[in-house]
């Protein structure tokens, strides 16, 4: 089919999902507050945030499972939820906490979902890639949490979707299975499928995502590549000082955002020329740094800083 060819060549419009000024209310609370995002063909786009940030609600709107109160969503050029039926053949969804009938066997479940699509993946091949080939005859109720999760991923991918929405992809998986699942998702992306990944695992987002959006209290507080976000959070320099050193002097340095001292170790976090500034101060005070360690901030550091920053702003706003 031509549509398949263009899809796999990565042609066609670059924007697969566009969300504009999305708002969803649950009673009095605003679960999603003015979220706008644009997701491109062939990328793995991560939606990150703590519990209750509005991640699941946002992707449920994209999947046509929930009606937004305000805002516009287009998926593959079609408006959601108006065209949700047309999109069912092209969007595969892995829902959080969605179960199958207890006595349904793994093989039957994949065969069943494969029968819903015209050009479905080969069930056996899919089960093998997800490490479920020995479980074909096992009933859903007898699967472990990780096996259920992998089956749910299989069902989301069996219809060869152009867009896969995966909510809490690897929750409940052991580290080995998690890595395997990541490889599978990378493989899916390499075939030209766009993936929206909801997660609260920073490591997962760092490994898999081409871009991530940080959600906090229903708002987007940042959109960037994982590396871009992490570098914004700067570095951490830690050492054991030989000689007396007042942490206040370190705090006064330009670019330093935080200083902690614990068990005789001092940790300085910040951006800019952090290392040069700290070393210069130590030399001028005659302090020798021992056991020096320098770490690049991770996505997690960036995330903590940004959510703390957003909370502080909100507090200030309330105080005013």
């Amino acid at each position, binding site marked *: 089919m031509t549509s398949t060819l263009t899809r796999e060549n990565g042609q066609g419009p670059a924007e697969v999902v566009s969300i504009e000024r999305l708002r969803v209310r649950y009673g009095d609370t605003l679960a999603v507050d003015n979220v706008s995002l644009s997701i491109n063909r062939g990328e793995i786009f991560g939606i990150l945030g703590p519990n209750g940030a509005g991640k699941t609600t946002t992707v449920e709107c994209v999947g046509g499972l929930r009606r937004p109160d305000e805002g516009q969503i287009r998926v593959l050029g079609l408006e959601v939820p108006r065209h949700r039926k047309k999109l*069912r053949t092209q969007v595969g969804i892995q829902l959080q906490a969605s179960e199958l009938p207890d006595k349904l066997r793994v093989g039957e479940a994949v065969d069943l979902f494969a*029968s819903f699509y015209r050009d479905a*993946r080969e069930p056996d091949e899919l089960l093998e890639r997800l490490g479920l080939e020995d479980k074909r005859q096992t009933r859903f109720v007898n699967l472990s949490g990780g096996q259920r999760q992998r089956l749910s991923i299989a069902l989301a991918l069996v219809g060869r979707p152009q867009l896969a929405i995966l909510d809490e992809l690897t929750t409940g998986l052991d580290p080995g299975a998690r890595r395997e699942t990541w490889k599978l998702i990378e493989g899916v992306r390499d075939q030209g499928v766009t993936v929206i990944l909801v997660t609260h695992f920073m490591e997962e987002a760092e490994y898999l995502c081409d871009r991530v959006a940080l959600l906090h209290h229903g708002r987007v507080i940042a959109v960037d590549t994982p590396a871009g976000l992490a570098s914004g959070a700067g570095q951490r320099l830690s050492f054991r000082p030989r000689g007396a050193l007042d942490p206040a002097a370190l705090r006064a340095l330009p670019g330093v955002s935080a200083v902690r001292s614990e068990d005789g170790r001092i940790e300085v976090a910040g951006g800019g020329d952090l290392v040069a500034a700290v070393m210069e101060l130590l030399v001028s005070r005659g302090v020798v740094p021992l056991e020096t360690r320098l770490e690049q901030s991770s996505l997690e550091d960036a995330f903590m800083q940004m959510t703390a920053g957003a909370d502080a702003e909100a507090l200030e706003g309330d105080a005013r």
Partner: protein
Amino acid sequence: MSAHADTPALVRLTPGRSQGFRTLLQTELKLFVREPILLFWGLAFPVVLLLVLGVAGPKQPERALGDVKFIVVYTPVVMMLMLTVLSLSALPAALASYRDKGYLRRLSTTPVGALRLLAAQIVIDLALEAVAVVLILVIARFAFSVPLPQQFGGFLLAIALTISAMLGFGVVIAAVAPSQRVAAGIGSLLLFPLMFFAGLWVPQAEMGSGLRDVSHFTPLGAAAPAVQNAIAGHWPGSVHLLVLAAYAVVLCALAVRFFRWDR
């Protein structure tokens, strides 16, 4: 790449949905067969009950029963028991559990949609109920010489209305029950009054006239005499048919109005 790379284009172009519905139906049937307790109460138990009543009950027509044989009175009652267990226990428990698990929601994101799962459940129930009705008629005919329905059109109409009312009732229970357990409980609890009025414990002919009048305004209390009349060769009474039709319309409308796809 494609699993169907070597199949002709025409085959690939057949809509996935009808294929999907067929597989959904087969899968639901397999799942149903894996619930032996439903098959027992829905099919095996009523058959055994009919056999016991036929063998142990009085053989001669009885004045108290309106000069008809005991087994002739009980054949439609046992039929009602089957229809009720299948519609009021099996169907709501399955639907409520599928909703609680998020399975209906999951299916609503596929091209097949959740409505087709409801349809598959109802098709299976209808088929089983048709089998149940035929089974009872055949056993009653060949084991106990109960005639096959002489007024066949009236019989079909009465059965069709009864099944519609009971299936509608089943979906309403699934809609109002917060969980599978509660759905199954409501279904079993309702079985007793419904079957009482149908005459399972006291035949309608032996009820006091006041109680009998009340029973004729309950769904199964109207259905049992309607079916009994049709078996005897009379067109079912229009009051019975109207009562059944009213229940069928109201319950199906409530079912459509209140059924929830989501937790």
